[in-house]
Structure formats: C-alpha cells, structure tokens
C-alpha cells in the first residue's frame, strides 16, 4: 500500500438515507456527482434504478433505499450519485452509481470502532451491510458494496424478474 492508501484505509464516506447514516470505504469512491436523469432498464430488480450517462459512459445506478426496503424518497437538490468501483465475481472491476439522499462527511473508523452486523431476524435483509461503525454518538452502517450488485444477488432477483414478467403477460391474456 502506498502511504496515502494506508492513511485512507480506515476512512469512510458517509451519506444519509432518511434518518440513517451509511458509510462506504473511501477508496472505493471515484466521484460524487449531482443527480442525473435515469433511464429505466426493464426487467431488472426494482432497486436497480436504471442507467445514467456519466460523461459519455453508461453506468448502472442503484437506488439503495429500495434495496434496503426504505420508503421511496423524492429527489431533492441534495440527492446525489456516488460513483463507486465494485468487484464482481471473478475479480473484475466495474463502476456503479449509488443514489443517496445526501452526502455528509468523511469519517475515520479504525477497525476497533467497527462491530459485526447484529442479527435483526429474518425481517431485515442485512446482506448488504458488512459492519456497524461507531463514531462519536452516531452509528454508521457500513455498506458491503461488492454485494449490492454481486452476481449471486442479481441472478436470484433476475430469475424473479423473469418469472414476474411472464406471469404479468399471461395475466393480461
């Protein structure tokens, strides 16, 4: 690791979704851009909002609220897209945008300040959360960004989406 990487390794970019505070490893974040017009891509899990044009490049964006089962929020001028690089199965890197309500700040969270994700029972899907950090009085849910679009996740939802659309079409007949 370069000195910069060592220094940034325990830094997290935090953002809010509703009243909750989430964190992302800063090394994964490539940029933060304002909200862009999103084109919906049919037949994808609901939490994949669609694709956006990031300076001529098309990247998928995830509405992380929907992935977490939070209520849909309206888009404000504070809404933005955090562009992150994620590792896919097989080790290839890809770029992905995450829609968040508001970006707050960068926190330093040493390993000892991070706890494992508590069990909430089956009601709550915690597979996207890799730990809970504590900074001052606040609790930061640390995102496991690789899992948000991981192949395993997608193939399950994809199958669901396919079955769903088949039903829908049949239903209309």
């Amino acid at each position, binding site marked *: 690791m370069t000195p910069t990487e060592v220094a940034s390794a325990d830094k997290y970019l935090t953002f809010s979704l509703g009243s909750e505070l989430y964190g992302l490893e800063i090394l994964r974040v490539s940029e933060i851009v304002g909200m862009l*017009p999103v*084109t*919906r*891509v*049919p*037949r*994808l899990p609901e939490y*994949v909002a*669609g*694709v*956006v*044009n990031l300076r*001529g*490049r*098309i*990247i*998928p964006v995830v509405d992380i609220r929907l992935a977490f089962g939070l209520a849909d929020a309206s888009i404000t001028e504070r809404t933005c897209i955090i562009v992150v690089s*994620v590792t*896919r199965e097989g080790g*290839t890197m*890809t*770029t*992905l945008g995450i829609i968040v309500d508001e970006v707050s700040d960068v926190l330093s969270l040493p390993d000892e300040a991070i706890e494992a994700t508590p069990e909430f029972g089956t009601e709550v899907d915690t597979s996207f959360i890799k730990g809970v950090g504590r900074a001052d009085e606040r609790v930061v849910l640390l995102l496991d960004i690789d899992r948000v*679009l991981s*192949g395993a996740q*997608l*193939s399950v939802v*994809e199958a669901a989406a396919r079955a769903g*659309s*088949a039903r*829908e*079409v*049949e239903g*209309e*007949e």
Partner: protein
Amino acid sequence: MAGRSDRRPKKRSDGDAPAASRHHQAIFDAAAEALILFDPGEPESVAELVTRMEAVAELFGEVPSDHPASVALACARRIADGDMVALSTIEKAYAAALTLAERLGEESQSGTPDPKTMPLADDIELLRDFGTRASEHLDDADEQLLVLEADPASAAAIDAVFRTFHTIKGMAGFLALDEISAFAHDAESLLADARRDGTRVGPDTVQSLFSAVDRMRELVANATGVGEPASTGAVSPSSARGDVAPAAGHAMSATPAKADAPASSSQTPASVREGTVRVEEGRLDGLLDTIGEMVIAESMVSAALRTGVDQHSIAVHLDRLDKITRELQQMATSLRMVPLRATFRRMGRLVRDVAHKSGKPVEFVVTGEDTELDKEVVDRIADPLVHALRNAVDHGIETAEERAAAGKPTTGRVELRAYHAGGAIHIEVVDDGRGLDPERILARARECGLVGADTVPDERAILDLVFEAGFSTAQTVTDVSGRGVGMDVVRRTVDELRGRIELDSVPGKGTTLSVRLPITLAIIDGMVARVGEERYVIPTLAIERSVRPTVDQVATVQGSGEMLVTDDGLVPIVRLHRLFGTEGAETDPTNAVIVITSDSGTRAGIMVCELLGQQQTVIKPLGEGLPPQRGITGGAIMPDGRVGLILDAPGLVRLARDAGALVGRGPHTKGRDDDTD
C-alpha cells in the same frame, strides 16, 4: 517506414556492457531491424537496409572484401540495385549478418550476453512482428500455389513461393527459431530444381508445398502465438492429401478454432479486443488534421462567446464545429476498417482443398475483396464463410458426371463476392450447383421435430429451417443434399454482428447465401420510438416498415396472442409496454405504430406509441455490472444527454415467446407459398 522506428528491437541487457559495445549493439540492432523489415518491393526499406549495413561495415573499419561486414553491405547494395536474382543475395546478407552478430557477441563479452544463448526470440515484440509477417507471407504462398497449380510452369509463382519460405527462413534464423528455419529450408529445397532448370512443378510437389505451408503456419503460431493454426488445420486437414474425411467434422471443428476471440456477445459491441489494426498513415494524418481543425473551431466558438459577437456568427462557428465532429466520427470509424482481402484470400485455398477432396472441378471467383469492414467483423466473418464455402463445394456443386448429365458445364462455379449497398456490406456465396431441395429439408426438419407433422411452411420458411440449431446433425450431411452443417453457428455469428442472413435457392440452378452486415459495430442508424414516457432505439437495418394497423389487420388467435395481418403473412405483435412494464403507453394497436422488423428470418411487429425520427447512435454497453439484458443490445446517448436503450428485435421476439406472449415458432407458418420476400 516512418512509425516503425519505435519497433526497434529492444537492446539486450546492455547495462554492464562498455559504452563502445553498447554503441555497436545499437548499430547492429538497427541493421537487424532493417534486415527483418526490408521488403525487396519497397525501395525505401531497401535504402534503409543499405544505410544500416554501411553503418555496420563502418564499425569494422578497413576489412577484406570477404569479411562478413563487407559481404553484408555488398549484398544490400546489390538488392538496392534491383538484382532480383537477389534471393541468394538476401540469403548471403542474412548469413553475413548472423556471423556479424556472433562476432559482436564475442567482442562485447562483459555483461553482454552471447546472441546464441540469449536469442532475440525472447523479445516478444520482435516475435510477434515475425509472426504477423510470416502469416502474411504464408497467405501469399497459398495464393501463389493456387496459381502454380493452374500453371505449373509459372516462374513468377515458383519464385514467390520460394521467396516466402526463404524470407521466413531468414527471419526465423535471425530470431534463432531453429525448427522453423530448418523446416523452411526443407520446403525451399522442394522448389530448388524447378527454379534452377525451369522445369514444371509436379502436382505432388504442389501438394507437398501446400502441406508445408500448413505445417509452417502451425510452427509459426506455436512459436509466436500469432496466427490461427487450428483454423487453418480445419481448412486443410492434416495431410491435405487423399483423406476424404466427412466434411462435416472439419466444418464443425472450424468453429472452436476461434477460441482466442472472446465470446463477445452483442452486449459489448465496442469492447476492446487484444490485437492490432494496421492503419494507413494517410488516415492517421487526416485524423490529426481534423482534430487540429476542431481545436481551432472550438476556440473560435469560445472566443465568439467571450467577446459577445452576434448570435449569427456563433451559429456559423457551431455549424462548422458540427461538421468537423461528424467528419471526426467518420474518420475514427475508418481507423478500424480493413479490407476483406486477407480473409477472402484464405478462402481460395479452402475451396481448392475441398474441391480436391470431393473430386469435383470447381472454378472459384472472388470479387470485391477491397470492400472494407470493421476489423472485428472481418475477423469474425471468416469462420461463417468457411462453413458456407465448404457447403457450397461439398454439397452444392454436383460431381462432374451429374453436371454433364444435367447439361451443365462440368466445372462447377463458386463465387464469393462482397459489395457495399444500401449502407451495409453484402457478402454472398453463390454456387451453380444443384440447389436446395425443400422437400428433403422439410422431411428432415420433421424428423428433427423442428416442424410439426401438420404444419406446412412456405418455401422461404423451409429454407430458413436450415439455420435452426437442431437441424444440423451429423446425419444431415449424408441424408440431405443441402446445407445444414453448422449453419446455426453461421447465423449466430451474423446475429452477433448485427447482420442478416438469407438463403435463396433454385433447384438445379444453384444456391445463394447472402449476408448483410453493418459497416461498423460502433455506430448504428436507429429509429427512435416512444413507448409511454420512454424512448427506445430500433436499429434501422432490422426494420422492414412500420404500419398503423386498422382493426381488421389485428387478428387475435385464440389463446396465442395477437397477429398483424399483412400482405405477406402474419406477423406476431410484441407489445413492448407489456414486455417491459412501461406505464402510460398506448394499448390500442389501432392508435399505435407497429414497426415490422425482420431479422434472420424472424419477423415481429413491435408495438410502440409513435416514431420520433431517425438518428445515428453510438452503441455503448450498459455497464458490466448489469446482467445481459434480453431484448436490449446496449445503450445510446440521446441528444438530450439521457440514455436510450437500443432494442434487439430477435431477442425481443424470443423474450416474448418465452414469456408466453407469442405462439407459433415460424413467422411464416401461414404465409403464401409464392411469397419470396
């Protein structure tokens, strides 16, 4: 020769060598490069060689005329003087250069490795260069051998073939690829008598030379990783002599030969592939010039904006910028364009081999080999062409006796042609053979369960059956006199290249396989359609026409979805809004527009709200993070900066079919029999 200087062989670990020796090494390397790159046909390269050799000779100062340095220089000069007996001269030059290399190695001992123990072959760049050049030379040899076969006394062809092996021998010797150089030497000696005495080259010798070319390809590919030994192996089965193996096996084996090509799906059309494209200097210069123009135009626009001149002049500048941008786009596209020549050239050999094996005299005519296409398309179309040509000769053309009996000339004719028409590239394989027998195809298709016992497809639909995956079985080759050998693979490749494929046949007269391909993979012409609030791009190439149906034209087949009744058959309607779950879309077909697409024989009516107009779009992948989307080829940046999705018509039909929205697998199941559209 400009632009090649960067390919200079890397100096071999000269870190510890004395400065003088390093200097020598540099001179020697330059000479070696000139030796490798020079081509007797290019005066420039010959001049370069002489210069380099002079520099080498200078190194050694006053030396006797039999010193290798003097010999090398003398040889170079003779080549420059146009001494075309020069084959032996070139050989001498190489030999002299090798001796020199050894001497240099001895002289600069400390730290500089001896060329023997540290062959140049370790230099990947040099090796690849050798591989590329050797492959080209071998393609040449194939072509010349065909000439030689037709005219066994052709001195020009004999010389050309000889030179191929000779050049390879020299290059390989220099790179210390001993096996290749020894083999080239043996191959060369096959022609020695003919060259010396001007005698005719016997058919056996020609055959051996063909085999030698194949073997050499393998050797080169193994040594350098350049070239496709497997593919050529399929083209010319192992011995190329005698063995009349069932063609099917080889045709099939030609498919995996392209294993090095990534299984690029239609998802990532513009994905960057490993490989190089040779670009004419002129094109590159043109590109740079235009970029210069663009920079100027851009600064004019900003200057105009800053100084606040009138709207009109800004508009003029912008107009100019717009024109330049379009020009740039065209030029950038042209950088990836290569002529079909190299691919077509290999086909001559293929047809010859297949014709030989099946014992049919076949005349092979190639036209339009200068037609240019995107490099990826050119690379990937080679295998389908191999299939098609093999089929044409093997199954299409009758034996000489059959032809005579049918009152045709005994020599069959197979034509491979390419041309540019209607914004697309057409490649056709035409034979004057027996044509396809619809009855037998249908019977076979029924056997394979592709067509129900009661269904009677029209003739066109029957021909299309040949492209079905289940149709090609080993049995087919012997049972049906038609094609069916891996034709599904052919269609899949053409599909992936966003092209179209069609088969036409007149029994007793011949068969034509036409492939229509987009000129480039990066840009498509598209029709922008609106569905609800969303916009989609439909590739123009796939569109037949669009209609606003009347009530009578929409037929609902009980339990099997909707059909559009057209003059040429029923077309299944795909309700895009239903398939994609779009809200706010028009649901009444009589108020909507139905775009009839036809792709690889599958027709579909895509129902959209309205058509917004035509647009050229750059295809971009939707991001690797998303799974492949059925029915969607990729994304396009629309003029307003949003992303539009590009529809894949055949994919949509399959999607709709799987979703149960369509029934009936053939689009023509109820078409008229005389329909030939």
